[in-house]
Structure formats: C-alpha cells, structure tokens
C-alpha cells in the first residue's frame, strides 16, 4: 500500500519546490538557496520540554521519591518541630533553641516577631532555619532531572533520534533546561505555599498573625531561587552532555552544585549580605547574570556528536 493509496499528500513542507519527474516517481526537490537555517524555533524547543516532562510524569519511580523529599522538607519535618516548640511546656528546650538563634545577624534578629519565647523561637526557626533548608529541595530535584536528561538520551539510544531530527542543538539544550527547571520551580512554589500555610497556622497565633512569606522570602522565591536553579542547571546540563553515564552525571552534579546550594542557603538564612530584600535583589541579579552567561556557554556543550555518543 502506498502513501498515495492512503490518501496522503505526496508533498512535504517544501512542496512548492517539488518537480514532477518523467519516470512517474515522486519528483525531486530542486536545489534550495544556500542559506543557513540556524534559527531558533520556540515551538520545537517546547516540544522537547513537553516530551521530557511527559516522560517524567509517567515515571512514578522517578517522581515519587522527589515528592517524598519535598514533603519531608517542606511539610513533615518543619511541621513536627514547630508543633513541638509551640506546644512545648518545657521552657529549657525553648531557651536552648532560642540561644542557638543568636548566631543570626542583628538585622534578622530585630525582625523576629512573637509575644512568647515559644512564639519567637518558632518564628525564627520558620523564617531562618526550616525555609532555607527547604530551598535545597528544588535545587536537588532539578539537579536530579537535569543530570539524566542529555546523557540519558545517549544511554537509551534516543540521542540518535534527536541527532537526526530537525531540532537544533540550542533547541534541545534549552528545551531540556526548561524541562529540568519546571519540576524544581514547581516544587518551590507548591512547597512554599504548603509551608506558608502550615507555619502561619502553627506559629501565626503566637507571632501576631500570618507572617510568612516575608518580603525577603517573596524576593527569594520569585527572584533568587529561579536564578540559582538556572545557574545550577546550566552547569548540570553541561556535565550531562559530556559524561558517559547517568550515574557519573549525578555524582559530578552533586559536587558542582554543592557550592551553589551553599550560597543559596546562606542567602536564604540571612547570612549573606544581611538577608534583607535589597540584598536578595542584588544577589538575585548577580546569580541571574552568571546563570545567563553560563547558559549561553552551555549551549555549546550540546552537539550532535555527543547525542550520538561519538564525540572525541
């Protein structure tokens, strides 16, 4: 059965250049102008992103541990500890915890709200300890997704398909970058929404009402964390394009992203530049700049040779 008998159009996207041949077969394409087609197709990039996310959604064994990790750090651990602190009658424990918070910068200490020691301690833990720790989760999730993305294509053999596809290296890189960013940033948004609800319910009554997210945390969530995610991913994808196995990519990613995670934690906890919203804006701007440069340079790491696994 031929395509024609199936009622399919005989022409392809360049049907305007198809010429009929005398032997009755489909005509050949006339030679096109020698212009380069190095343009960037957003639609193709989004197709790659969508395909990545579709795979992720259908891989329960992959996302269930990540959801568990997020739940643990955004909900269960802080919820359990804050419940203990706010309901604790043991003042010695609360005193000890509040003394530990003396390491915070003065500006941060000045912002701690609460009418009781338990309330002040819970507030400080909610804003300066548990939330910064939770920031590590989206970075970890994105790193895990990103590390497997390019080397995974090669390992599964699907890199060959991509190499023969119309997608350019830039589209593939950017598509993968966004696909790795989405689960991490979605975790940030959903995680902090749940976290906000929880800490406001548990700590709010003793801290003078709903307090989270603070203005600094809003800057953190919408400006600083996305920057850190992009910076991390730009590095991780470069690694993923170069290494030979997913395991190697994940190990190397852990090492490379550790300093980034450290810096993001320092900013979130207020240790870096005092933790004000202005310092957040400055740190965010610096991180976004570095991330942009890193992404531009990272595009070069994706080559068709690497997708095929024949790079030297």
């Amino acid at each position, binding site marked *: 059965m031929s395509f*024609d008998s199936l009622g399919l*159009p005989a022409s392809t996207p360049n049907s305007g250049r198809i010429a009929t041949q005398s032997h009755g077969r489909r005509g050949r394409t006339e030679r096109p102008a020698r212009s380069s087609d190095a343009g960037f197709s957003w639609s193709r990039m989004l197709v790659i992103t969508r*395909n990545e996310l579709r795979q992720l959604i*259908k891989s329960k064994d992959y996302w269930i541990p990540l959801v568990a990790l997020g739940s643990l750090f955004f909900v269960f651990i802080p919820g359990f500890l804050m419940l203990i602190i706010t309901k604790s009658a043991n003042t010695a424990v609360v005193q000890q915890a509040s003394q530990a918070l003396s390491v915070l910068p003065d500006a941060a200490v000045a912002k701690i709200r609460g009418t009781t020691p338990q309330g002040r301690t819970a507030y400080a833990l909610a804003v300066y300890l548990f939330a910064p720790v939770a920031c590590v989760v989206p970075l970890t999730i994105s790193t895990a997704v990103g590390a497997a993305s390019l080397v995974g294509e090669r390992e599964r053999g699907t890199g060959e398909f991509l190499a023969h596809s119309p997608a350019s290296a830039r589209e593939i890189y950017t598509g993968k970058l966004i696909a790795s960013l989405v689960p991490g940033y979605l975790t940030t948004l959903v995680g902090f929404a749940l976290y906000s609800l929880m800490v406001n319910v548990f700590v709010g009554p003793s801290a003078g009402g709903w307090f989270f997210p603070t203005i600094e945390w809003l800057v953190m969530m919408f400006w600083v964390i996305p920057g850190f995610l992009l910076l991390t991913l730009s590095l991780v994808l470069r690694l993923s394009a170069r290494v030979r196995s997913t395991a190697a990519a994940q190990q190397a990613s852990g090492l490379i992203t550790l300093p980034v995670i450290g810096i993001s934690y320092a900013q979130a906890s207020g240790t870096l530049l005092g933790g004000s919203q202005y310092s957040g804006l400055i740190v965010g701007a610096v991180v976004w700049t570095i991330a942009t440069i890193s992404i531009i340079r990272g595009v070069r790491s994706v080559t068709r040779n690497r997708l095929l696994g024949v790079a030297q």
Partner: protein
Amino acid sequence: MIKMTATGSDIRRMAKRAKSTIEQGGAELGHGSAVSMCGVTHAFSGKQALDGLDIEVPYGRVTVLLGPNGAGKTTAFRAITGALEPDEGQVESLGFDPVSQGSSLRRRCGVVSAKPALYDRLTGRDNLLFAAELHGMGRRIDARLNEVAGRFGILDALESMVGGYSTGMKTRLALARAVLHHPELVLFDEPTSGLDPESAQAVLALIRDMTVDGSTVVMCTHLLSEAEGLADHIVMMEAGRAVIAGSPESLTERFWPNPVVELEAEDPRILDRIASWDVVISYERSGMVARIEMADLNELPDLVTSLVRDGARLGRIDPQRPTLEDLYFMIRRNEIPERSGVGSADSAIRGLAPVGHNRSHHFDSAETSPIASIDSVVPSHGSTITGDAAGSLNK
C-alpha cells in the same frame, strides 16, 4: 578437478562489455542524485571511519549500502542527514547542505537507526506524537497517527508503554515514526537487526512499499539477503570507501557477464569433452557436477543435444542466476584488493580478466573465502539456484 579458462579474445570481449556497462551505470544516475557525497572523510580518535567516500543516491529508488561491520555505513548515514559533520569532503542531500541547512534537510528525512531509539517510558502514541511535533506537524494529528500505526500493524499497541513492546513491535514503531511526516528521503540502518525471520520479511516488504510513491530510500546492511530483491542501486563499502556502485543488473552484467550452467551426468567424464567447445568460455568439474560458463544461453539446447547424442545421461541441467551474495563476493574478490575507485573501467578490466580463474576459485567450496570476515553470512558459493532459474530451465 578440471579447469578451463577463457581465451584472450574472450577476455577482451568481456572487458569491452564491462566498459560499456560502466558507461550505462553513469547514465542511470543522470537524473540527478538525492544524495551526493564526494571525498567525504571522518575520523574517530584517529581511526578513519570514512576515507574519501563517494556516493550518489538516485532519486526515488532503493539504494543499499553493503559492507561488513566497520565499513562506515552508519557514519555515512549520519553524514547524509548532517547528524555528523564530515572532516573533509562535500555532502549534498536533497539539494541541501546537511551542515548549514541541517534543520531544513532533516525535516524531509526519516531515519530508522539500528536500535529503534524509542522512549520506553512513553506510549507508542506519545513517541509518534513527539516525532510529529518535532517535524512541525502539530498536535492534532490523531488520524494520521492511527493511519500510520495501522499500516505498520501496531495500532492496537499504540496506547501501551513502549517498554513493553517486543523487538519487532519496536522496529515497526520506529518505521512508523520515520515515515509519519512524509519524508522524501528515508534512511534505514540495519532495519531487521534483532528481528525474527517473519518480522524481518514483513519489515522489508514495508520498506519496498515506501518506494512505490517515489520516496528515496537508503538502507545499509551487512545482510545480503536483506538487500536481495530490494535494491535498485547498490553501493559496496569497505573501510570507509565505496568500492563499487551500480544497479544489481549492471553489476551482474559487469561481474557475471556470461551465463553459468551446472550439469550433472551419470558418467561425468563425458562432460569433460565440452570444455573445448566454442560456446563454452570456461569449464570446471568437481566430482559429478560440471559448471560451464557459456557465451550465450541460447546455445544450451544444442549443447545438451550434442551431449545426449554422445551418450551422456544427464541427471541435472541448472542455469545459474547469481544472487546478490554471489555478486558481493565476486566483487569483493575482484575489487577490494585493488583498492580501486567506484566505476573504474580499469579496475573492471582487471576484475574481469581472470574470470576463469576467479570462477574456479569461487566454485571450489573447499577453499576458504574472504567472506569469513563478514558477519552472519554463510556463503553459498553459487550453490543457490533461484526458483526462477530452475523454472526457466524446466521450460
């Protein structure tokens, strides 16, 4: 064993015919080429994968790249679509430069690689949808997806995860994905690799179907049986170079210019007398079976009549038609040691000159042949007689 070789005048006649065939071979590409590779080289870590490869792929035909593992077939494939940038040389596919116009070119190409290269965690439909979207077909193409899946016999499995597919189903899905966007150029890299014989036959039939509407097909394989009956144009590769190219008919005419007949007689010694007959170019006998190369098959009835008149009781008369496998090994013997270029008249003459000798070598099943290096091929050494050939004899 008795061996007789052709005379000097016979050799000159054969050489003249070979030259003529080469000229015709050039003409058959005269309509322009879907793919043109000229002096293409590519090395991996110093190892030369392509070494001055010259290929012309005619439009609307099935071109088969034949060669042993490591001949550079897959690398050539990758260079055709621009997936791999050659170190040197020029490639033009469908009139595009695969390097600078790769995206435009690849939109018009469908590729089935040796491994199906499918996303196991996705359903068959998702895999097809991804390919369709990459080729700019949009998302609302359910009818087309069902149509292609139906054609390749995987419609019922389309909603299942590809990870659960059998090898045959994966290959079919990869084939469906490759033709989904109506490619002008379809490339198959070892398409029946890992398939059972039934599935392999079905896949080859589907490939044959693809050319009906005029798509240009390039297939690479080291399985000669795959190419048999499928190839309109053959490019034989060795060590990153095209050793020879042409249609099976032109190659047959060039390397197997004279008909060969096998005769078996009750008293085989009677057969030996035909060695000196004018119509016989070469003669050899091994045991009961004599193989003769004739100038003209029309002379066979007279030859048989004469033998019978002389008292021969013939048990079998088999005109031989060369299979692709026969051709392949004949060409490898004649061309590869010479390291000659594609279509070299001189090489053809060198290849044809010792025909009698080569034939006798070819027919001697006790000898080791250079095919030992070819994977998965058991040489028949001319023992394959096609049904057509046998049928024509019976008539």
